[in-house]
Every structure is written in structure tokens, then in C-alpha cells.
């Protein structure tokens, strides 16, 4: 959900709309915003599952420190989505569609 108008900050600057691709689906984003902001704005909060216990993770620290929000971006693994700006046509892959064998 986007904060379009704000009592102190005023109306949100329009910003150029771009399209990013998340696991094969197109998603609207605003140029220059971090990937994590674009995902949260579209209501997506689960960014990945962890390697050891396959638990969901999303944005935690928001400043590139904790690495909870990492995803694979344009083929590069471990990208901190909270401090990486979107770019038109960017391809983002989560591991959410991989179901570990035998997961109950």
C-alpha cells in the first residue's frame, strides 16, 4: 500500500512507473525505490524461505544489514532488496516456488 498523500510530506512525487518481474509475474514499481519497497507496496511480505528450516522471511532491518530480505536479482544471489533500487525489466527470483522434497 502506497502513502499517496501525507499531512507533513504532502503528495507523493509522481515518479516514473517501471515494471519488474517477480518469479515470472510483472509488478509495477516506482523508479529508484528499493525492490523491498516495491514488493511491500504490492502486498508481498514473504521474500524467501530459509535454507535450514524453510521458514519464511521478509523485510526486517530495512537498511541492508540483517540480510533477511535477500533474493536473486538478474541471476545474482544474495541481493539485499531493501537497499537495491529497482530498474525497468529487472528479474527477481525468490525460492518460494521451490518445494523441498518431502516437505510436509
Amino acid at each position: 500500500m502506497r502513502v499517496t498523500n501525507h499531512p507533513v510530506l504532502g503528495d507523493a512525487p509522481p515518479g516514473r512507473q517501471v515494471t519488474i518481474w517477480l518469479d515470472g509475474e510483472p509488478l509495477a514499481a516506482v523508479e529508484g525505490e528499493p525492490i523491498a519497497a516495491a514488493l511491500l507496496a504490492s502486498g508481498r511480505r514473504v521474500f524467501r524461505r530459509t535454507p535450514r528450516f524453510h521458514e519464511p522471511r521478509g523485510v526486517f532491518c530495512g537498511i541492508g544489514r540483517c540480510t533477511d530480505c535477500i533474493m536473486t536479482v538478474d541471476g545474482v544471489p544474495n541481493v539485499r532488496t531493501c537497499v537495491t533500487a529497482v530498474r525497468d525489466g529487472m528479474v527477481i527470483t525468490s525460492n518460494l516456488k521451490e518445494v523441498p522434497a518431502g516437505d510436509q
Partner: protein
Amino acid sequence: MNKQTFDIAVIGGGVIGTAVAYYAAKAGRSVVLLEKDHIAAGTSGACDGFIIMQSKNPGPHLELAMESAALYRDLVAELDYDIEYQPKGGMIIIENDTQAALMQSHVAKQAASGLKVDILPIDEARRRELALAPDLWGATYCAADAQVNPVRLAQGFSRAARRHGADLRPGTAVTGLIADRGRVCGVTTAAGDIYCQYVVAAAGIWTPGLVRPLGLDLPIKPRRGQILVTEPLPPTIRHVLLCACYLVAKYRPQDLDPIERHNRLGVGLAVEQTADGGLLIGSTREFAGFDRATTLAGLEAVAAHARRLLPALASVNIIRSFAGLRPYTPDGLPVIGPAADIPGLIIAAGHEGDGIALSPVTGRRIADLLK
């Protein structure tokens, strides 16, 4: 108060000390292990996990390594603890004809000692290890090479030693050795004196300082190895990798160009992918006293060398660096056995970069010696 009399007191909680404690306790001896800090706090917690056969010079060195390799296969089941042993095979990267000549003669001698090593031209080497640069000469391949997690190895030895009744005392510094009529019969610690039949000094680079008051001068000194750690990655490096210049530096240092930075810092490539996906990329070999800091020049040199041989790693992120102090000896061989003229004192130290590979055989041999 803990029991203060034992058959054997082991000084040092690294892979060597814990291996000695394990094999001795398993053989039924009463063992106490004294470690000033915590298990694997020193060199064993700051190194790679190579169990590499093909870097060893044929002769006693290679024989020890092969005996150790066989023991490793048993340890996987015996220790009942995941030491992340991976029998993935190893490669030594050859850059040019000079190195190829050295490796060919090395490999021929190894074959005579019963170790099978193949020499692969670059195309075949790159088929097996995708990250290798295309303009290299090639690589050797040895299926007997393997990898282990050194910290988990020391922990596995410790836990198993404890199950066999050994008394492990981390946080206990040995302040001196007790001798009676020329025979070593115990150690002093802040928590009291401990008496024993044998003291095994397995304190790596700190061993010379321990035994010097007895007039024994061991030629072991710290040699620093700086290592880079990368982010966790999908499978990227399939083998344990060394470069032939490591062997040149070890066996034919006169062939090195002293002007080149990576030679000045003694950089030899050593790369492995650990069980959690991160790569360990080493390493320098420098005499810097007991300083465990990493340096800008050292890290840059390791990175540059790795990029030259493995250009695919250029985009990989470095998340940490560390340095370990390896117990160097002038002849490249460890000091294992009873100290001459000092009955009761056994030395197990000076393994430099071979401590991980040789820890089982060292522990086993010392335990056999004290039966």
C-alpha cells in the same frame, strides 16, 4: 576438586591435541586435555579444511597423509558427529610449462608411493572445474583428496574423547611443566598442579614457549595465512583447489620471482566450498610474529591471485577475512614423538598447513606410542 592424576596430559585444544586425547582415551588411557582458551580457538579455528594427499612429498610425509586419509574414513562413523567430511577430490592448478615439469616429476614419484594422480590438460580440467581460467596449462586431479570442517573436527574429537572418559578442560592455561629428576611428570595450571606419566605438547605455535624452560629449542614459528570468506553460494567449486605455485614455493622457492607481490607475501591459492556454501579463499604465507590481523596488501594479493586462476569468482562477494598462524618448521615436516633427552615429554606440533590432514594419524601414532 577434579582428579589431578592422569596417564596423559595433553596441552592444546586444536585438532592435534583433541585427536591425541581421542585416540588415547579410546585406547583406555586416562586423559586430561588442557586448553587455555576454547576448543579450536587458535590455528584450527582459522584455516581451511584440506585433507590433500597430492601436495605431500613422496616419502614419510605422503605415507603419514595416506594413513591419515584411511583413518578419516573410519572417523566419519566413529565420531558420531558431523565433521562435514567431503571426499570430493582435489586439483592442483598448473599455469605454465615450468610448473608442469615440476608437477610431472612430483606425480611420477607419488605413483611409485601408491598415490594415483592424473595430469589433465586445461580443457579436461575446465570440464571438471568450470571456474578455471581458459589460458592455464592444466591441472592435476587426485580422487583421494578430501575436505573436512576443522572446527567441527576438533569438536568431534573432543566430544568422542569425553565419551571415552577424557577430562577436557577449556579455559585452563598451562603455566609450566613439572619435572622430577629430569623426567616430565606433570603440568602447573592456575587451577592446580596435574600429575601424569606423559605430557603431550600439542600447542601448535605456542609449543616452543612451553618447552623452552626445559632447554628444548623447537624450530617452530608462526606463519600467517590470510583467508577470504565469501557469501554462501550455490555449488560453484567442486574440488579442493591448490595452485602449483604453492608447491613451487614449498619445494623450489628459488624458482619464484621475488618481485611479484603474491610471491613476496607467499600467496598460494587454496580454495574450497564449505558445507554452508561459502568459499574459503587463501592464502598468504608470511612471517609476522603472533599478529593475527589481516592486512590490506595481503587481502588484495589473495584476491588478485584467485581472480587470475578463477576469473569466474570476480563477482563473488567477500563477507569476511581472517588470519591463522600456522606452525611452520624449516623442513616442512611436523615434530611428532618423544622429546630427545626429556623423558615423559611428547611433542605433537609443527604441522604448518597439514594439521587438518595429519591430525588423525598424529593422534593415533601418539596414542600407540603411549600404550
